[in-house]
């Protein structure tokens, strides 16, 4: 390897973008070339200084509001006098029904809050010593069959090591008074618990992130399953986890 090549590849080495073979080649060159070794360490220093500085910008709230306002909004129609009168004419039965609808809506949201808090508590519990995993394995073919017969669903167990999230095992947990599967991943020292339960709703529901007690929880629904991914990872990285998981599942199902 020439110095010119090494001067480019050492950046890929710094960024963890090289496969093992190329990384070895660059490291071998650097071990034998003081100039390139100095360059690598100088670049590493700069990267460290850059990482410590806050170089991001935050979008002004007014910009967020402008963009929100430009999206199609559900418009509240002003009821005309006539329709108000008609409403009265229809009498109390309709009003009672409407009222019960409101109650159902409120209850459902309360339910979701309660389940979210249960999910976060389960995550917290799992972080206590010895509670994280029931079956320890980085092999999806060991973890998946372990759930058999323990649950009314087969949680998808997918190895995401190549995507930067290491599968470390599985566990049974209880959410909403039901046994539920938890698949456990790690990124660096951060634990991601992926809770999976069955739902009668087979429709796709897009992921959304909520925060509770400092943990991020991203929940979504797909293929008749509800998912909650909980972690102390940043919202960005948790979203990345969900994207990678869904992408991997898609190739598994279709491929």
């Amino acid at each position: 390897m020439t110095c010119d090549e090494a001067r480019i590849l050492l950046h890929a080495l710094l960024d963890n973008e090289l496969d093992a073979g190329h990384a070895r080649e660059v490291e071998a060159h650097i071990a034998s070339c003081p100039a390139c070794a100095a360059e690598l360490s100088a670049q590493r220093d700069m990267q460290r200084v850059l990482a410590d500085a806050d170089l991001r910008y935050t979008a002004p709230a007014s910009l967020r509001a402008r963009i929100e306002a430009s999206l199609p909004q559900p418009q509240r129609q002003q009821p005309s006098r006539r329709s108000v009168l008609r409403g009265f004419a229809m009498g109390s039965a309709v009003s009672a029904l409407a009222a019960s609808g409101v109650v159902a809506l409120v209850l459902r949201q309360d339910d979701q809050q309660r389940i979210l808090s249960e999910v976060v508590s389960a995550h917290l519990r799992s972080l206590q010593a010895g509670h994280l995993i029931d079956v320890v394995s980085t092999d999806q073919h060991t973890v998946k069959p372990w759930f058999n017969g323990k649950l009314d669903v087969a949680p998808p167990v997918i190895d995401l090591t190549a995507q930067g999230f290491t599968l470390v095992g599985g566990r049974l947990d209880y959410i909403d008074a039901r046994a539920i599967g938890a698949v456990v991943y790690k990124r660096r020292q951060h634990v991601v618990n992926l809770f999976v339960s069955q739902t009668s709703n087979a429709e796709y529901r897009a992921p959304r992130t909520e925060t509770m007690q400092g943990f991020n929880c991203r929940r979504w629904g797909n293929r008749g399953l509800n998912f909650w991914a909980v972690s102390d990872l940043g919202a960005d990285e948790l979203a990345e986890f969900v994207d990678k998981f869904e992408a991997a599942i898609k190739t598994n199902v279709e491929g």
Partner: protein
Amino acid sequence: MPANDDLQKAQRFREAALPYLDDVYTLARYLLRDASDAEDAVQECYLRALKHFDSYRGPAIKPWLFAILRNVCNAEYARRAHRHSAIEDTPGAAEQTPIWQETEASPETEVLRSRDAGAIRKLIDALAEPFKETFVLREINNLSYREIAEAVGAPVGTVMSRLARARAMLRAAWTADEEQAR
């Protein structure tokens, strides 16, 4: 009243794209070096993204948003026409000069002192395109090489060499700046 489909699409779009508003705004600030131009560009980017949301095929939405923002910014560059050249996809003369001359000119083992964010931003702002955008996408927006390649529409190899150049230029500027301050 908008059709139900539109509302659902808007909702999906909101959930998928709005969490990255700060990321998109950050890139716009570095590319345009002006707060109000950046705001306009980001708004335009989100409008276009919503319009083409149907044709978006996952999984990573970030590079897709950045690619749109980049187009918007290029239009803005064209409007400013004279002062800065647009982000070029064809390698310019700067890209073909070997990296190593520049690094040799700067002291090899000089340890950079920590600087406040404002000073570092100025140094990054001064980088030439297309090196600046590659640098910002990697170092500040945290994209992988593959995602950067997707966003800027260039091969991964090009991304890698632009990044190497960008870092070499930044370090040279940084050291020169420190010499001056001394």
